[in-house]
């Protein structure tokens, strides 16, 4: 009796799920519309807007820019965040707690406020509309997640395993290469994937600091949606969703693989 899932309750939950997924599901059929504006159901079907998307200079360029920035941000974010997380977890020093709070504080700031604040500094430093500026701004969004994930990853590695390897005669380098790195690989991959997705999807802060020549894909889509109402955005959205699913699938496979190797 207790804790049973009644039929009306199941129906209610199904309706909420439909509401939750509706905006994502609706873009798929719309992207195959051949109409000049949004009508549903479309009057004619075809690949017109996919073709338009690939010949649209703005989207193609923005896709490439977003990709380059996301890759750079992922690499630099790991290079800065992993050592910091290691130091905070494994070393004892004054101000550990303070540094951890400082490094993860950008998570708490609303991105509209952070975007304006970064704009105000970058306008003086002449970093508006530059790769450097966008990469630094994205790093401040991704590194708090990298540090949080890596802190958890480091705390799940018992130091006794490393000590055992050292006692058996492994050099510090060998310990890192053969023990520490393989054990923290899942955390490493999770951080990298999340960094890439966060940077690739970031829109609010990018809106403040992109220039007319250097626009990321989400900014390009935002501007397009604001000014045009045709199904091209649906085609772009489908490509984005499929790319995201692909990345998650790849991670699932590699994470699964690294686990089997670990055994």
């Amino acid at each position, binding site marked *: 009796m207790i804790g049973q899932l009644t039929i009306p309750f199941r129906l209610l939950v199904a309706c909420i799920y439909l509401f939750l997924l509706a905006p994502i599901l609706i873009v798929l059929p719309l992207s195959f519309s051949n109409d000049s504006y949004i009508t549903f159901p479309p009057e004619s079907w075809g690949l017109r807007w996919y073709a338009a998307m690939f010949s649209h200079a703005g989207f193609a360029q923005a896709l490439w820019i977003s990709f380059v920035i996301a890759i750079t941000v992922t690499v630099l974010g790991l290079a800065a965040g992993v*050592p910091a997380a290691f130091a905070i977890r494994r070393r004892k020093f004054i101000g550990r707690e303070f540094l951890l709070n400082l490094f993860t504080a950008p998570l708490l700031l609303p991105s509209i406020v952070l975007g304006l604040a970064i704009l105000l500094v970058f306008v003086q430093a002449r970093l508006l509309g530059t790769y450097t500026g966008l990469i630094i701004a994205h790093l401040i969004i991704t590194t708090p997640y990298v540090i949080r994930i890596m802190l958890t990853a480091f705390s799940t590695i018992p130091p006794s395993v490393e000590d055992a390897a050292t006692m058996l005669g492994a050099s510090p380098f060998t310990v890192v290469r053969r023990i520490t790195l393989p054990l923290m690989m899942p955390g490493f991959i999770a951080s990298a994937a999340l960094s890439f997705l966060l940077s690739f999807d970031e829109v609010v802060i990018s809106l403040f600091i992109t220039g007319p020549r250097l626009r990321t894909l989400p900014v390009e889509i935002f501007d397009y949606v604001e000014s045009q109402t045709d199904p091209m955005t649906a085609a772009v959205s489908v490509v984005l969703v499929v790319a995201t699913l692909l990345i998650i699938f790849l991670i699932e496979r590699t994470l699964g693989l690294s686990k089997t190797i670990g055994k």
Partner: protein
Amino acid sequence: MAAITSSVPLADAPQTRRKFPFLLIALLLPMAIINFIAFVLPVVRLGMISFIESRSGGVLTNNYTLENYVSFFTDSFSFELVANSLTLGFGVTLITLCCAYPIALFLHRVSPKWRNMLFVITVSPLLVSSVVRTYGWMVILGDQGVVNGILMSSGIIDSPLRLTNNTLGVFIGMVEVLIPYMALSLIAGFGRLENVYEEAAASLGANRWTRFRRVILPLTAPGIALGCLLCFVLSISSFITPKLLGGGRVFLLATEIYDQAVIQLEWPTAAAISVIVLIIFGLALAVYSRVVKRFD
């Protein structure tokens, strides 16, 4: 030979402890630099600029003044902005809670086989850009969208319902964007809920509604508080969904910050509004910590 001789001081290094922690600083320095350039410096500068006398066209003077705050608090439009933002914040939080609570309860009670799959479906919208999801709502709610298309072709209405470019559209879009956050917070707080408590209440004669009100609700209250804080804070500062679904006709603090900063180039005004948003954040956090204390 060289390799052997150079390996000797390396092996000795751990014993001769250096006074100055070079390694520690090397590990922390890159992160500290990023944090300083893109967080500490900007936040300090935002605070300073909010007190600078504003000139048109993005020119910053060296004169400090309270003018930006005074003009905010004496302008009736800013009260409208605050009222709109707070209404949106409270309203969206309440509706999101009503939508996410059944999901969380369902996930808590469903068999583990289904739970994992449904959990992934619940959080997966977080991985889809909010621009894409908002565009989806424009397709569904627009004048020639799905809802109006169905209603008009079935003859229920003659002219399209106004579902976008107004507050209603922003509400619908915001609730959908925030459901995963609320559901995650609720699920985190559902651990304390066990069937035994409900069975005990039922055996003592409590009916379905009493059990929900006196057993389930109090046990899940910490999760509710966390989810409400998160949703309130996110909806106050949200910008993409109100901008696109509001069609420039819904005026909020967040949209005003963007308009003042990027379109009007009135940076001191935008900075002052940002500081006011941060103060509202602080208040929400204070209320939350007082509420949470009562649970312990």
